[in-house]
């Protein structure tokens, strides 16, 4: 199946406009959802197709089978390793049991996964991820092992150490009575944080109404159809021209009703989904903000620890203590960790600056497309309805 660029996300297209084979390219797509398994264990699997000329990949084309939790694995890996970058959002995990296997839901999820993968593959940093390559190429058995190993509270050893260190410093802070939240005092960043949190609220509300609007279209379609049926029956009580008029009205109402149902579906896919995606993207930014706060705290604490160690070392030097060697080693270790933490933090700050610009630009495009599709859809619907009713009116006038 030909890969088609995601309909409503410009930022989700990994297609490059020029495609002479000399240019490096990485095209991905998620297609062919298939229900597997039985009962409670049932799940959907997707085909993921990769077409590329990049040397890191095993060949020009690869097809693998993946399921939702594989995508979750990839997302978590990226989140861990690319701090500072707004990882593209995944479609939501929990779905109401009843709707988990409706055609509508399956298609919406497939689309969202396709967009996710495309965004990853077109991000200048994320596309280089080893985990991405793994995801796109390894066979299902390997994937299953990775998935089982990685998901959940199981963290890598390095991370484990970090957690202990965090706890340690936190405890000492409490003991020393200086338990104050360490936060950046950057007014521009403060503004950004406030903006992000507020934005989520506004978007969530808009999305809520968008979803309701979809429902309203369906309801209007249904009641128009029922009304048409009742009119037809009423017409059969009357005779001649009036009866015919009623029956024409009934027929027309049916047509309009069908059109309304179609529009409801369009609205869902082309407007409500993009809005939901927007909300999720903002939540991803919030997650990054949280990570940055962590990174900042570590950087601060380790810097403090370095200072303390330095002072301690100086003291020991003066008294020529035999503990000096040990202290020196410790000092070197902590200094290295601190420098690492500081670099990590500063990288995050730099990356976030770029990311925010990209984010805003992409969202303007995405929303522009969404608004266009909404308006276009509504205009078409209305014109359709006008034409339909107009035809009937001409008949009635006769």
């Amino acid at each position, binding site marked *: 199946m030909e890969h088609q660029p995601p309909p409503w996300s410009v930022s989700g297209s990994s297609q490059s406009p020029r495609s002479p084979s000399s240019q490096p390219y990485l095209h991905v797509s998620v297609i062919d959802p298939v229900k597997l398994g039985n009962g409670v264990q049932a799940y959907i699997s997707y085909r993921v197709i990769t077409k590329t000329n990049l040397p890191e990949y095993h060949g020009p084309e690869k097809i693998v089978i993946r399921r939702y939790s594989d995508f979750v694995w990839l997302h978590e890996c990226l989140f861990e390793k690319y701090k500072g970058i707004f990882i593209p959002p995944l479609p939501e995990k929990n779905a109401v049991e009843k709707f988990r296997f409706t055609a509508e839901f399956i298609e919406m999820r497939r689309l969202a996964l396709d967009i996710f993968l495309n965004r990853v593959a077109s991000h200048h940093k994320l596309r280089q991820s080893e985990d991405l390559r793994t995801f796109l190429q390894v066979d299902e058995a390997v994937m299953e092992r990775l998935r089982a190993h990685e998901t959940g509270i199981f963290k890598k050893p390095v991370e484990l150490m970090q957690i202990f260190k965090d706890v340690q410093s936190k405890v000492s802070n409490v003991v020393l009575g200086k338990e104050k939240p360490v936060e950046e005092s950057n007014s521009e960043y403060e503004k950004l944080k406030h903006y992000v949190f507020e934005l989520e609220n506004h978007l969530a509300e808009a999305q809520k*109404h968008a979803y309701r609007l979809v429902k309203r279209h369906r309801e209007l379609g249904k009641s128009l159809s029922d009304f048409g049926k009742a009119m037809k029956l*009423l017409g059969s009580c009357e005779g001649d021209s009036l009866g015919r008029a009623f029956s024409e009205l009934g027929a027309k109402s049916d047509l309009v009703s069908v059109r309304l149902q179609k529009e409801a579906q369009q609205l869902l896919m082309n407007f409500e989904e993009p809005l939901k995606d927007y909300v999720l993207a903002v939540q991803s930014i919030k997650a990054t903000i949280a990570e940055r706060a962590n990174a900042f705290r570590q950087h601060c604490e380790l810097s403090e620890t370095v200072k303390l160690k330095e002072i301690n070392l100086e003291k020991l030097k003066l008294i020529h203590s035999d503990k000096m060697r040990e202290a020196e080693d410790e000092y070197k270790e902590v200094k290295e960790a601190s420098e690492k933490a500081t670099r990590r933090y500063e990288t995050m700050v730099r990356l976030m600056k770029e990311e925010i610009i990209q984010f805003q630009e992409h969202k303007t495009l995405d*929303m522009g*497309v969404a608004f266009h*599709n909404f*308006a276009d859809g509504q205009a078409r619907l209305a014109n359709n*309805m006008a034409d339909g009713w107009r035809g009937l009116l001409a008949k009635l006038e006769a």
Partner: protein
Amino acid sequence: MMGAENKGHDYEEAHLFASKEEMESLVLHEHPFNSNSNGNGNFFSSYGSAMSSSLPDSHHPLSSSVATAILTDSDPLLSPPPYPELHGPSSHDNSYIEPPSYADVIFSPFHGEDINSLESPSLSSINSPMSFSRTSSSNSEYIRITVSNPQKEQETSNSIVPGGNTYFTYLITTRTNIPEFVATEFSVRRRFRDVVTLSDRLAESYRGFFIPPRPDKNVMESQMMQKQEFVEQRRLALEKYLRRLSEHPMIKKSDELKVFLQVQGKLPLPTSTDVASRMLDGAVKLPKQLLGESTVAPHEVVQPAKGGRDLLRLFKELKQSMVNDWSGSRPLVVEEDKEFLEKKEKMHDLEQQLSSSSQQAESLVKAQQDMGETMGELGLAFIKLTKFENEEAVFNSQRARVLDMKNFATAAVKASRFYRELNLHTVKHLDALHGHLGLMLAVHSAFTDRTSALLTVQTLLTELASLQSRSEKLEAASSKVFGGDKTRIRKMEELKETMRVTEDAKNVAIREYERIKENNRIELERLDKERHTDFLSMLKGFVANQVGYAEKIANVWGRVAEETSGYVKESI
């Protein structure tokens, strides 16, 4: 991002939307968003209150326009174009001041009511299309009744309850050019009890006619609602009822109605007595009736037995109806008119379909209303978002987005208004369904009149037959006794007298029955014709509205689609 900045300039003019448009009062700051722009962009004009009514509350003096509409002989669907002042003074948004489309023409005359309070489309104060279509075709006579100004009054007579009984009176104003009325404009005050009286007297005088049913007494509900709500509901119901009465060709000229509408002070119509006192009166008379020879006076025969005081007659007719139903024998006179029986069936079917149509119409109206509301809420949410983004904008990409969002939000709010306007009109048109459903009650009554008149005839015939046989028996017996028994002779004479009276009564009853049959027939014809006219006009009106508003909505969104078309070309 290409083109986003260029777009900004083009948007400047398009953004000077009518501030008169009623939207929520969110003041968006003026923001010289670009060093390139000339900062005069009054982009973010202040919006008035958004989600309230769809039409600004300009109170049009209805009567003049309605009068013109009715008095001209033309089809009301093509009456003069809309009021330009219906819409905001700003001429930037040209979609409002366009050549009259059907939607503009079929406007709802808001009769001084506050539109904001009309949350649910229960606009019975709006002149229904039923009267529009019918009166325009008649010889330009019109009558228009308004019920207003409910006032609380005290019961002046000695009431049992200390502190007095209070009740409400309503001002009933009539405007008419019908010569049978004394003036062209006059008012009276009436209470609900008077309306009940009017309705009862009409029922007596116009047996066999389809008399519009009066509003219910609603004792239970009056306890449940707030007094004000109840009074308002009753006022509306009374207005609707009186208007329907005034549309009926016979009743509008009736004495009862004339008296009701014109005579000041106490209503000079005989009041109906309640069931209890009637029964009491009847019970008092009964013994005498049983002992003596009872007859039904001919003049009483023109009214059904049920509502009267003559218990004996009631029993007799009851017995007769049971005989009709249960005994094998055919009564002496039956409903023979095949055409009528067919018609009755048809009416029954019609009623069922009307009922279900009426229900579906309600659902449709609700769905349209919801659509408008949600669209409006969506628009509002985006207006808030626009304001927010505008305040916090750091990047140009955001500012471009703000423009798009604002266009979108404005369009959504406009579309929402259109939906609500459409709905107001839809309600008005589909009201014909409810109206005719209501009339079915009147049809039932009229058919019942016929049935009870027939029953009276049958009873009298049976009675006559039994009197006849008694008389024959008496004659046979007396012929055996020689010399003539004085008592027997007297009895025979009494019997003969009774028979004569009963014969008269029978004749009157038969005449009455025939009269009612004829009334039924005339009314059925009239109703069919009126229903046809009303329904045709309803269909046309409904469809025309859909066309008109669909066009308007298409326009609004079409423009937004165009303005954002750049995005779609970009992403390909």
